[in-house]
């Protein structure tokens, strides 16, 4: 991947999540903001996520989960990915819990485990603001 004006972004669904429309939407959302996207699709096992991230060297990894297992799957994914990929910004978003409520403690745990940002309840305004941060596009 090369860095021009935008940012190289890897989009992926979490390991147990078979939803696709959220990933298509995120790809378009990032592309419309000038970024280049590789979309791995749904049900991406942690090993594949690590392999693709180390092979493609994206500047941003966007994980999405809407099946209610986002906290659990996100924690497993970042624990596998962060030691192998210290450089990229890695974020998680979607509907992360089964009860549709926000949980600050779980978000804190995800941030401590290595995510740069967590967008619970699919907070696109916050994700858009994150994409505009200078760190998010620096390589």
């Amino acid at each position, binding site marked *: 991947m090369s860095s021009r004006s935008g940012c190289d972004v890897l989009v992926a669904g979490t390991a*147990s999540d*078979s939803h*696709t*429309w959220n*990933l*298509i*939407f995120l790809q*378009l*959302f990032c592309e*419309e903001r000038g970024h280049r996207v590789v*979309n*791995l*699709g*749904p*049900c*991406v*096992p942690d090993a*594949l996520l690590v392999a693709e991230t180390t092979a493609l060297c994206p500047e941003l990894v966007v994980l999405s989960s809407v*099946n*209610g297992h986002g906290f659990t799957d996100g924690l497993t994914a970042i624990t596998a990915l962060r030691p192998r990929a210290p450089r990229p910004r890695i974020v998680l978003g979607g509907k992360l819990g*089964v009860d*549709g409520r926000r949980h600050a403690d779980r978000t804190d745990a995800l941030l401590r485990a290595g995510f740069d940002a967590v967008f619970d309840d699919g907070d696109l305004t916050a994700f858009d603001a994150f994409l505009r941060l200078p760190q998010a596009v620096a390589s």
Partner: protein
Amino acid sequence: MSFGRFVKRAASLVVQPRMGFGDPVAMRDGLRATRDADATTVGTLTLDSYTRVGDHQAAAKALRERAPLNGYPIVSHSTETTAALLDGIRDSGFPVQVRHGSAQPQDIVRALTAAGLDATEGGPISYCLPYGRTPIRESIANWRETCELLAERADTPHLESFGGCLLGQLCPPGLLVAVSVLEALFFTRYGITSVSLSYAQQTHPAQDEEAIRALRTLAARYLPAGTDWHVVLYGYMGVYPTTRRGALRLLQASAELAARTGTERLIVKTVAEAHRIPTIAENVQALEVAATAARETVPTATTADTGILGEAKALVEAVLDLDDDLGRAFAEAFARGLLDVPFCLHPDNAGQSRSTVGADGRLRWTAVGAMPIVPTEPDSALTSDRLLTALTHVARSFDR
């Protein structure tokens, strides 16, 4: 009586819930309530997502820890538990089908046949491409073995193709019809003599009517003589109306569509669809609302032909021409892009097709890749806003 024969002999539309609970007691209560609803019903055991992906350890752990599951883990529960929950509920007047979503369903079929069940659903394409990353060739081999297992272990096996759904929305009907026909044909090649072909309600009633009639025409043409077959309609599978009124109107529209087209079976959606997993009472309400709407609808004989039959037939023929072995033909068809599911990100899907909701509310192809069909609407740049507008078209119309 077998699942297939029960549905074919029913005097009115057979309605069925999507219902699954981890707890056998709740599952039994749900089946009993389905049986006792004021409608002609069949029962459903919907499995949980751990069982769907073959993670039976996680399902067993959830059972041990009494953690909630989003369905019934038929592989992790003992055969005795499943047989006991069905005892006195499932009989010749109330057949039960297992619904799962797995691309590797051999263990599921072993478990369901051991408990005396004989009806399930899925398919090598429809439970592979839209749902994960299992390579299509693996899924085809798994499903061949699954058909053979079911044929060998069940007295009156029935298998339903999920091909009429694919990603649930935005797939123009020609491809849905073709995949349903191809999968049903695949089942018959591997020993299943009673099948159902599916179609999921889309964005436009007349387009859906035409699609179901095309499905019936092609099933009659391509399935071997003597095959017991019927059509099952899925109530809308996309973004659902959030209002109670909108959700019920969309459900009624699906029942009316089934009744107009002589569709034998309908799988319902409930008022809870947009919000959470429905209760047993909400499922019963949906079954009864759908049955009433169907009773009040008069069947119609024909629908104007806008080309769905021709499109579906071209796709089916293109696949059948590839290889006498239908499994090899499926793999080759995806490798060449002769079948290409719009928006599907699976590594074995060509990903060159695109579709949209036209100004008149009908689904149209804006790009067809290598499929032997033609685009029905000029291509325009897809944006995140346009995608959201298309995905929520039905929900917005019914919530209005």
